[in-house]
């Protein structure tokens, strides 16, 4: 059999039809290496791509393969500006092909879906074939957990609600569907339901979206409200900054309800029922954006990794090695560290994980406590107004937590020194756009 017909990794022969593989994979002869330095990364989001690039930059002899189920990259960060119709923001700006960075940085990209992980044999099984590894990096992101949130709903109801009330926390059709609904909406209410329990992707996202859609209604002169049905008592991410903005800019549009758990959604009649002060309240909506509970991707379960009490992956000390297996690393939204699940955190964790992986593959050591505390390890902007573009921000210092032994985040929501006394500013709006442009430069150009 000819070499091009095989996909051979780390002594394992498999093993996929060449016609199924991307051009990048085919031209990457390194995938057949048996150098003992093969890294397979599951997930092509901010974290996974950061690991891939950082590994190749640090050590070109490492064979890096990214396995990703999506055809194109799409960013969740900054996508609320698209939903809010901010001038100059297009869907295309949120997307990128995977081939360009793979070619530029020298890693392999394979579009496929993971169907199993055999940690003993060090093999990832996918719809395209099996991939052997020396080090496995899991960066698969989140999944939704409608079943846990709505145990009485059957699969058909979940399917219907997820389609009609798109969550848009995972990139792709959900964003396009929600945008289409917004573009077509009549006067009436937009209901936003943030994840009502547990850790979730991008904690300020539902509230940035609230601001963006309120701005959209204001700009388009749509008569109605943006109603937030939350279960917190108002202590959500950047709450003071969001509340100040809503009070200043959208006093008759944003209506925030804390401690308001969802009871049911009737997509046929476009109503949603929630509890408030122990009483069921039913309201009509024109557009409903229901973000269900988040959980880790099923890929984590396939690997059989130990999880924390809240369902995220138990991490070894302050590094990104899983507690279960020193050859399996986790970055991005699935980590059990006490850090926000943001794009910037995913990038930071990806780069940091790569340092440890390079050391491991070269029989060296990496002090996982080095560089901690890390000042401004995470910075997260939220656009709150589209015209003019204004934003707020939070930055986190990452520290070694003496109680958990893991990394914890210390937040700070500053006000700009522009004399306004407000959290939001046009300057921060510009920084938001530059943050996103910089991230794209980092991953793709």
């Amino acid at each position, binding site marked *: 059999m000819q070499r091009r017909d095989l996909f051979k990794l780390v002594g394992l022969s498999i093993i996929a039809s060449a016609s199924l593989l991307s051009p990048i994979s085919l031209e990457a002869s390194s995938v057949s290496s048996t150098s003992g330095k093969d890294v397979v990364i599951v997930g092509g989001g901010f974290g996974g791509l950061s690991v891939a690039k950082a590994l190749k930059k640090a050590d070109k002899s490492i064979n890096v393969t990214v396995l990703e189920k999506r055809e194109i990259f799409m960013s969740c960060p900054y996508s609320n500006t698209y939903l809010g119709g901010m001038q100059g923001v297009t869907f295309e700006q949120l997307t990128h092909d995977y081939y360009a960075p793979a070619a530029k940085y020298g890693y392999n990209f394979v579009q496929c879906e993971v169907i199993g992980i055999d940690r003993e044999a060090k093999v990832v099984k996918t719809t395209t074939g099996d991939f052997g590894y020396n080090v496995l990096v899991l960066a698969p992101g989140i999944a939704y957990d409608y079943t846990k949130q709505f145990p009485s709903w059957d699969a058909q109801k979940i399917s219907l609600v997820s389609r009609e009330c798109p969550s848009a926390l995972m990139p792709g059709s959900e964003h396009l569907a929600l945008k289409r609904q917004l573009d077509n909406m009549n006067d009436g209410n937009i209901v936003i339901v943030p994840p009502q329990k547990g850790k979730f992707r991008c904690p300020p996202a539902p509230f940035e979206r609230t601001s963006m859609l309120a701005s959209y209604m204001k700009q388009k002169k749509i008569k109605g409200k943006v109603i937030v049905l939350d279960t917190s008592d108002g202590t959500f991410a950047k709450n003071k900054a969001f509340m100040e903005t809503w009070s200043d800019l959208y006093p008759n549009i944003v209506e925030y309800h804390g401690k308001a758990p969802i009871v049911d959604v009737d997509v046929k009649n476009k109503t949603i029922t929630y509890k408030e002060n122990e009483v069921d309240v039913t309201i009509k909506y024109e557009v409903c954006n229901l973000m269900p509970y988040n959980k880790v991707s099923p890929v984590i379960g396939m690997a059989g990794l130990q999880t924390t009490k809240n369902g995220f992956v138990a991490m070894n000390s302050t590094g990104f090695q899983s507690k279960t297996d020193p050859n399996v690393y986790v970055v991005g939204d699935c980590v059990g560290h006490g850090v926000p699940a943001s794009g910037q955190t995913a990038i930071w964790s990806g780069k940091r994980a790569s340092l440890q992986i390079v050391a491991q593959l070269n029989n060296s050591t990496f002090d996982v406590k080095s560089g901690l505390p890390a*000042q401004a390890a995470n910075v997260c902007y939220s656009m709150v107004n589209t015209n003019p573009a204004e934003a707020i921000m939070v930055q986190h210092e990452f520290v070694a937590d003496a109680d958990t032994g893991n990394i914890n985040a210390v937040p700070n929501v500053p006000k700009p020194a522009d004399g306004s006394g407000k959290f939001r500013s046009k300057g921060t709006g510009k920084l938001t756009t530059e943050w996103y442009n910089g991230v794209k430069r980092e991953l793709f150009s």
Partner: protein
Amino acid sequence: MERRNFLQIIGGIGTIAVFPSLIPTRLFAENGQMFVGYGKVKLVDALGKPLLAGKLKKETAYIFNYPFVGTPSMLIDLGTATQKDVTLKSEAGDEYVWKGGIGKESSIVAYSAICAHQLTHPNPKESFIKYFKKGEKTVSCSQDKVIVCSSHMSSYDPASGCKNLGGDAREPLASIVLEHDIKTDELYAVAVVGVGKFVDYFDAFGDEMEQYYKGKREAKAEVSVQTKTVELKKYSKEVIGY
């Protein structure tokens, strides 16, 4: 000519010590391009008159384009003497020695104003890079007298070669090697030490090069003879920093 601003590069086979102005064109350390000597360029003010070290406003960021027409660099008189002989490391692990500030007080420094993280830089419209002077607070790190790129909150210490203090940047800002003529008090830029990021910068900002420099090819031309040096707040219409 002041001689303390010579340069050391630590490489695999020993230490090289050079006076930048004595390098005719380019010098490559054995570990790559940690040092590149460019043409000796005089820093001048907006009227074309030589910028005098003694006339610089203390703790005020100035911008001059160097080593290329389209690459902004930042000049600051920190007001106090910098550290000396600071060993710095690039993201790739290459080490080099930053010798310290120049001028009467050893307080004048210059760095590429292209962020080592994701290439954010000042342009005539706006700057997200700013120098935070003594007593001015930034959320990026706990100290003052720092250069901060606020788009991703990377902060650098200009008194120690712009080593990283906070944020996601993994290497210092590239340092612009200056010479100070003691007799005339004039300042010259002669070289770049560290990781310049210029190739990535030109790749990423083609539109901007077109907008401000008539094109990428024009922006990529090396600066020669002299370069205009103006305060950052005049170079960019808006300076934004946290």
